[in-house]
């Protein structure tokens, strides 16, 4: 079996094992897994309304996945997508309602604000790593909570003690009557186009530009990059900033598309951490991220149908997702297993 085939098989095997273990958990807990998975399936593809909302759910997952994947490809672990996304969400919502502008300016401006907010928050972590050698995993974890509390405080202030901002204006909204009618009043919005556009952007930067070559070189071997005359610090900061930009845009999807405002959150959205799963499943490639986001986004949205249709707590899907992450992360052992299997076949 070639390496390439194994690389594709590892996530697929992980997904299958995850679903099987999920079924076992349901059986052990006294639920009917077949009913459960049927409910999940209907929740995702049942009607045009579900499909619309599934795509809507996939959208921020793509951007969060891109953020994590981009950082990974440049040798960084951005576990701070969550915080960057929250600030992007807030920035987009604020620009979305605080200005009155024509749509051609307002919507791009709101998106840009979100991208800038996410990028700035990630820049801090990049700067700390470049200048003070602070490990980005710890820095971004700490920045996540900082972002959460700051965003909540700002929202409270903006809403004069309330718990959510004003609704974004039509001129900054990603929603459209056309999409709503097409999908039976779902909350599908044009954000999916922004997300797919960013998939192309990431691919182009990494695979086509000299900057992408530099970022990857720095990510793999800082000393060699330094030797080759690249500025290591500049590239670390830039890589984090671009990653944060994707994350910030992920927040804009929620602000300008799904929710149309920003509200005080008791805890994290989970999208940022799920983004790690998405990137991992997609082997950190832009196209892989689309697949990973599609899977996890679908599962997450479809799960909402499980309590009503099958009487199973929707958390079963989170359990399955967590298990899939374990299996993909433990790819080494699956690889060894697959190689042994293929050797046996060859031997026969």
């Amino acid at each position, binding site marked *: 079996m070639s390496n390439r085939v194994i690389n594709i098989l590892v996530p697929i095997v992980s997904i299958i094992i995850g679903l099987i273990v999920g079924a076992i958990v349901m059986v052990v807990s006294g639920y009917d897994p077949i009913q459960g998975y049927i409910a999940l399936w209907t929740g995702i593809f049942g009607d045009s309304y579900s499909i619309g909302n599934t795509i809507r759910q996939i959208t921020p997952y793509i951007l969060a996945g891109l953020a994590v994947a981009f950082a990974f490809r440049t040798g960084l672990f951005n576990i701070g997508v969550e915080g960057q996304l929250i600030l992007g969400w807030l920035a987009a919502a604020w620009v979305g309602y605080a200005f009155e502008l024509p749509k051609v300016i307002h919507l791009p401006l709101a998106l840009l604000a979100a991208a800038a907010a996410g990028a700035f928050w990630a820049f801090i972590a990049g700067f700390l790593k470049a200048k003070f050698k602070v490990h980005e995993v710890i820095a971004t974890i700490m920045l996540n909570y900082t972002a959460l509390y700051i965003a909540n405080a700002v929202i409270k202030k903006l809403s004069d003690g309330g718990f959510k901002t004003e609704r974004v204006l039509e001129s900054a909204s990603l929603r459209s009557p056309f999409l709503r009618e097409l999908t039976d009043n779902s909350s599908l919005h044009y954000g999916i186009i922004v997300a797919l556009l960013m998939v192309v952007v990431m691919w182009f930067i990494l695979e086509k*530009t*000299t900057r992408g*070559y530099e970022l990857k*070189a720095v990510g793999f*071997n800082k000393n*060699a*990059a330094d*030797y*080759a*005359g690249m500025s290591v610090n500049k590239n670390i900061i830039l890589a984090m900033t671009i990653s944060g930009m994707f994350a910030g845009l992920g927040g804009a999807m929620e602000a300008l598309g799904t929710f149309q405002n920003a509200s005080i959150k008791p805890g994290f959205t989970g999208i940022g951490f799920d983004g790690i799963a998405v990137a991992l499943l997609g082997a950190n490639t832009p196209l892989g991220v689309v697949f990973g986001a599609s899977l996890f986004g679908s599962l997450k949205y479809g799960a909402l149908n499980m309590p009503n249709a099958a009487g199973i707590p929707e958390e079963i899907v989170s359990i399955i997702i967590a298990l899939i992450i374990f299996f993909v992360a433990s790819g080494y052992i699956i690889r060894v297993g697959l190689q042994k299997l293929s050797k046996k076949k060859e031997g026969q």
Partner: protein
Amino acid sequence: MEYVIEMLGIRKEFGQFVANDNITLQLKQGEIHALLGENGAGKSTLMNVLFGLYQPEGGEIRVRGKAVKITNPNVANDLGIGMVHQHFMLVENFTVTENIILGSEPTKMGIVNIKDAAKKVQALSEKYGLDVDPYAKIEDITVGMQQRVEILKTLYRGAEILIFDEPTASLTPQEITELIQIMRRLIAEGKSIILITHKLKEIMEVSDRVTIIRKGEGIGTVVTANTNPNQLAEMMVGRQVEFKTKKIEANPTEEVLAIENLVVTDYRNIDKVKGLHLNVRKGEIVGIAGIDGNGQSELIEAITGLRKIKSGTVKLNGQDITNMKPRKITEEGVGHIPQDRHKHGLVLDFPIGHNIVLQTYYQAPIAKGFVMDYKKVSEKARQIIKEYDVRTGNGEMTPARALSGGNQQKAIIGREIDRNPDLLIAALPTRGLDVGAIEFIHSRLIEQRDKGKAVLLISFELDEVMNVSDRIAVIYDGQIVDELNPKQTTEQELGLLMAGQSKKNNKRDVKEGND
């Protein structure tokens, strides 16, 4: 004669690859037995079999005549076999004593009894003449002392048979002399030693017998007193080896590199290069001879812009390049074969082809504006792979990591020379390579010099400096203490200068490399 260790017909396979095939090594009580072979010949594999890290596929190991199965290092320890590793196995922020007792700690009511342990360490070190401070932290002591701690680790566990893996690789000449004395002392106390090395001189000086292996196969065992370096080299490589590299007379012309009064600090801000003067001209190879740690790394990094220069000037073709950015210096015409090819020379996770354009990826025709043309990358890579005989498994898309050390180095040299630099800096260009690759690299360096380029060679190997350079500059404590003509000097003289034992006023005037 009693053998303490017998390894008979050992065979070790890694998948398809046979690392050891039918190797026999018999160690007598009280001898220093050298294990000689080129890099990659299978010396370490054989010793790891003896130390229980690998299980052999064939053959037998006997300890004092009794057949044994050594399944892990603990079994080896129990049999009295101890290993002094080439890369020291020491915990940096532990004390000497903590490192020595680790894994077999003496306790008093469940508490580690450091005091008693330190006393025992002190006693052992006095018995064998190993000067160490039991309470010093590893990160604060010299490399030589760290090695003595490694030796003490084995003695503390009651080792009777000591394996020394390339023990002189990072030692100064004085430390090497001390080590040899320590080894003799160990023998006098009844220990037996296996010495792994590829340095013929050390073997001749210290060993009783030599077992030679080549490409994984046992070639034979000879008594040191009955052999000579030429014969050993031939057995090791499998053909006649030229100790002298063939080359025509040098014809140096204008000055390319001129260094005046250079001062450079290391990462702790301590001066490592202290007012150094050096010049290299077109058409000559200047070899910097010196012991590791005398400022060589800092000197190279200063020339290439990787380290800030505190004071002094570096000029290239008359132009001041002091403290310029590395990229600018590269563009001005400096090629650099770095001393650690894995750390600096290559991005190991990139395909070898992408490594070929590591300094030129942003220039036409590889790049058009900010867009890279990977087709052009492949073209360039294929050209260099062909010209420099780089053996890759899968063409230019083979990961650099998958290449052998020699082929990695050939790719780097190809890349650097292809840019046609006026000055080529080669730092330890042959470290860890086999004789074939070494000869290839030396001939390429001489070819550059014959083309009228300036070459600066830095090496810790005296043979290399003597053979390849047209002029030798000896570096000691951050200064060039003397310049010599390789034809008029001896290894003894060089060795003394490198150890800082010569007075400036003894200096002979050999500024002209070709007399």
